[in-house]
């Protein structure tokens, strides 16, 4: 392969300048003449029937310009994917605390508040269900939703069931020399993007349409929902994504509601309408990471060879499905870990409850299940008295192996390399031995102990069986010889704009400074599915590569015509085109000649993921076309007198394939690990009778700069042939192994397993939570002052 000039070379983010200067305008930063502000009336009950709802008194309040309920939308504002169970504003029932019931737009804050207070809303409380296992019992109160796969057949609170079936693990487990049979659990996690939700809708002067500035991750999904609930064609709805202040999977479904509300209000009022959110309102109304309860059985030989696994997952979806059926599906697929087994079954049950609602969050089910299976592997290593890295190396997936689903793997698998890399760079063998010996010796005398733990993962690339998997780009050369491009996939922080720019520059042999990516806009870009699942580099990057190749071939045609030579005689030296006479011609001259020829210097390209097939009914198939692999080691000190855990080192090795944007990929590794550290030690959203217990950063703690050590990140650049220039994904898998590596390190330090995340102070100190009386106070205050 030719020497690469831009891919993998030091580069800067293309959108950093406006952000460091403070001039980047996020959705809440827009100020337009005549702009109204809007807010929702929200439920303060976890489950209730709406007995009476009348917004006409709000319209009498001076300064209120529009007030709406679900009845102002087509089909009550019903939307959702894959289950259409949500509404733009509540329809007949509310099912969680914070659910939006009505929305008001007004000229001033005072009028807005008076308008919301004037709404007549009577709620009749209904019994709620707050535990996913209770919810699945036949006599449980019903959340009142229908199952995913059979909308007409009542099936209690069961949203969906997923399975994996490969062989029969039962007889193997029964005869195993060593049987591990353990329960683990994970908690709700808040995305905690620093930018809360916001949206601005601007009605068109002709009254026929609306432009929405929305920080949703997936503008085309947003537009689709808007068209549906507003009864408008795609030509009358335009969604533009301003800079987004972090998303992590958390800016889709609830933003679609928000945009629906502001769009309707703007169309009715004939004025721009902006809705912004306090942190409290954001935390109360937005979806969270799904909590999971995981029962793992693994049978192994005394030598350490794994034989069979059986995993049961119970997933709390909360009041609405959002994307949870697929989160649970990804969890279901990854629940047994990146290991070889003779047989494997997974059974996943997803329950509706009245605990807020859940959806996508970085890692999308795999963060949860890997946290559990990787603790199980550690427990198994202890029982077998085998080093945890050795046990993983003995059993982990290698090139040419079959996954636990029976999927044959290619030569891109690099888990052994990742494990060996972190073993070496963390000085694992020495530390494991020395800390282990010190912890054995110390009993009461040494309150501060050290430990080191490992975890590894695989992570299916892109959507797999979750939907049509393709991406599209467009590109054109402009009058000033700059090049603009679009992608149907967006960049809400991870750096894909820069990745796309570097790929385009590499293919075209032109300087990155020539390229500018259009702001994501449904009127200029082409739909490419949602921006989720760490899809941007592989899917969007390939679309960009193809687009750039097509534009490049147009330029070479023009150059050949200019030189009067054949295509193969055109050579390149950077931006220069060189003909048979060895006379260099500038890019500008080639472009000008192309114009004289009447050539359109624009191109588009689409890339489709290699095919996959998964039978939801049989639990068999090829769930993803390929996987990312990674391993991390964490080192901790644990103060056994206080329960305080300090993470003193993290070493990460990820099978990223070719690195395109080095600074960006390290940023993803550091950031993902930091979210994983929070997930391991401190982050936990508790619901008590459906009421969220922490509504701001004073009680919901996320890692600060002093909670995180300097991280040592490594990329294992094994070439991945389907990826652009051999690249794989990184954003989600960077987070996946972190929490189990940390809790395994705590186990190494203390000898005590904390099977429930997070391993917070009291769990580390006394092994269980301090009983705390929950209350509805934080939620009610948060909603009042939203």
């Amino acid at each position: 392969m030719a020497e690469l000039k831009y891919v993998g070379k030091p580069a800067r983010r293309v959108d950093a300048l406006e952000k460091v200067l403070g001039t980047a305008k996020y959705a809440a930063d827009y100020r337009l003449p005549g702009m109204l502000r809007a807010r929702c009336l929200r439920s303060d009950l976890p489950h209730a029937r709406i007995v009476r709802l009348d917004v006409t008194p709000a319209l009498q309040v001076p300064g209120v310009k529009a007030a709406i309920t679900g009845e102002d939308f087509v089909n009550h504002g019903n939307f959702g994917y894959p289950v259409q169970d949500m509404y733009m504003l509540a329809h007949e029932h509310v099912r969680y605390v914070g659910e939006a019931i009505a929305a008001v737009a007004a000229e001033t804050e005072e009028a807005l508040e008076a308008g919301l207070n004037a709404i007549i809303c009577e709620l009749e409380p209904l019994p709620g269900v707050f535990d996913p296992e209770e919810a699945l019992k036949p006599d449980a109160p019903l959340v009142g939703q229908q199952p995913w796969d059979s909308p007409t057949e009542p099936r209690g609170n069961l949203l969906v069931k997923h399975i994996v079936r490969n062989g029969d693990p039962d007889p193997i487990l029964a005869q195993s020399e060593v049987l591990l049979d353990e329960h683990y659990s994970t908690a709700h996690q808040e995305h905690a993007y620093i930018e809360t939700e916001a949206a601005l809708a601007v009605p068109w002067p002709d009254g026929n349409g609306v432009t929405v500035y929305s920080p949703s991750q997936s503008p085309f999904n947003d537009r689709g929902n808007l068209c549906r609930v507003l009864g408008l064609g795609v030509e009358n709805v335009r969604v533009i994504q301003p800079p987004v202040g972090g998303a992590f999977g958390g800016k889709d479904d609830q933003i679609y509601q928000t945009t629906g509300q502001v769009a309707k209000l703007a169309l009715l009022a004939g004025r721009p309408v902006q809705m912004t959110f306090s942190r409290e309102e954001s935390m109360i109304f937005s979806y969270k990471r799904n909590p999971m309860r995981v029962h793992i059985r693994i049978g192994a030989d005394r030598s350490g060879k794994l034989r069979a696994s059986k995993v049961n997952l119970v997933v709390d979806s909360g009041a609405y499905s959002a994307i949870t059926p697929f989160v649970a599906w990804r969890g279901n697929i990854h629940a047994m870990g990146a290991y070889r087994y003779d047989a494997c079954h997974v059974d996943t049950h997803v329950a509706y409850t009245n605990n807020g609602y859940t959806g996508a969050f970085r890692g999308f089910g795999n963060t949860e299940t890997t946290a559990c299976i990787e603790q199980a592997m550690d427990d198994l290593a202890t029982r077998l008295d085998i080093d945890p890295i050795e046990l993983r190396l003995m059993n982990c997936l290698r090139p040419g192996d079959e996954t636990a689903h029976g999927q044959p793997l290619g030569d891109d698998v690099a888990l052994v390399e990742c494990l060996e890399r972190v073993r070496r760079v963390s000085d694992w063998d020495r530390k494991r031995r020395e800390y282990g010996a010190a912890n054995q010796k110390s009993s009461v005398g040494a309150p501060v102990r050290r430990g080191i733990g490992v975890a590894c993962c695989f992570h299916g690339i892109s959507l797999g069986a979750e939907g049509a998997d393709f991406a599209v780009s467009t590109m054109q050369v402009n009058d000033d010889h700059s090049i603009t491009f679009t992608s149907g996939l967006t960049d809400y922080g991870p750096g894909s704009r820069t990745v796309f720019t570097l790929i385009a520059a590499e293919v075209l042999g032109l300087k990155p400074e020539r390229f500018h990516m259009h702001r994501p806009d449904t009127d200029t870009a082409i739909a490419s599915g949602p921006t989720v699942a760490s899809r941007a580099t592989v899917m969007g990057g390939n679309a960009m590569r193809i687009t750039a190749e097509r534009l490049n071939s147009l330029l070479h045609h023009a150059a050949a015509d200019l030189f009067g030579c054949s295509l193969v005689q055109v050579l390149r030296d950077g931006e220069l085109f060189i003909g048979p006479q060895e006379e260099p011609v500038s890019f500008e001259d080639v472009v000008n000649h192309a114009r004289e020829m009447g050539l359109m210097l624009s191109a588009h390209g689409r890339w489709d993921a290699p095919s996959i097939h998964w039978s939801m009914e049989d639990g068999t198939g090829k769930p993803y076309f390929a996987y990312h692999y990674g391993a991390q080691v964490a080192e901790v000190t644990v103060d056994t007198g206080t329960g305080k855990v300090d993470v003193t080192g993290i070493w990460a090795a990820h099978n990223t394939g070719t690195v395109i944007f080095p600074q960006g990929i390290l940023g993803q590794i550091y950031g993902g690990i930091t979210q994983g550290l929070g997930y391991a030690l401190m982050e936990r959203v508790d619901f008590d009778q459906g009421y969220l217990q922490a509504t701001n950063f004073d009680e919901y703690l996320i890692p600060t700069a002093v909670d995180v050590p300097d991280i040592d990140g490594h990329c294992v650049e094994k070439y991945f042939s389907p990826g652009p220039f051999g690249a794989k994904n990184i954003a989600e898998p960077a987070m996946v192994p972190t929490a189990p590596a940390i809790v395994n390190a705590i186990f190494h330090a203390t000898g005590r397993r904390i099977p429930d995340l997070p391993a917070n102070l009291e769990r580390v100190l006394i092994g269980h939570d301090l009983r705390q009386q929950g209350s509805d106070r934080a939620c009610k205050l948060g909603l009042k002052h939203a």
Partner: protein
Amino acid sequence: MKIEFTLNGHPASVEAPADISLLHLLRDYIGLTGTKEGCGVGECGACSVLLDGQLVNSCLILAPQAGGREVVTIEGIRGADGGPNDLQQNFIDHGAVQCGYCIPGMVLAGEALLAKNLTPSRSDIREAIAGNLCRCTGYQQIVDAIEITAIDRRGEARKTEVTHG
């Protein structure tokens, strides 16, 4: 009431209610939206500004408290040419920016530290930005950017000493 203060080096005089926060004043009465609201309770640092050189959460300061004092927001941090200053340029060069929402506050936290201490250790830098939450970067490249700026400015300071010495 009329609130008069120095804003990014220039006199400012704004008619505003007495009970609003400095953050609200900056964003909604003056139109400087580089200062962000992330929590409204002084926990996240997205609204950080310098008040007489001290790093403060502008959501916790009442607007009239700025009266007669010197306020510096992200819009006031610029190089001689009006572009990014050295710290901002190092944020760009060292990958310290992802979504960017915390970055104005982070830059001001960095400036507040470097005004007092040009020889900070990495843990000094981490302490100095511990009141500013970032959910994207894991802080490491932000620490790099501040550390490198400190080194550069030490060099500049030495050069100045030599010139004047």
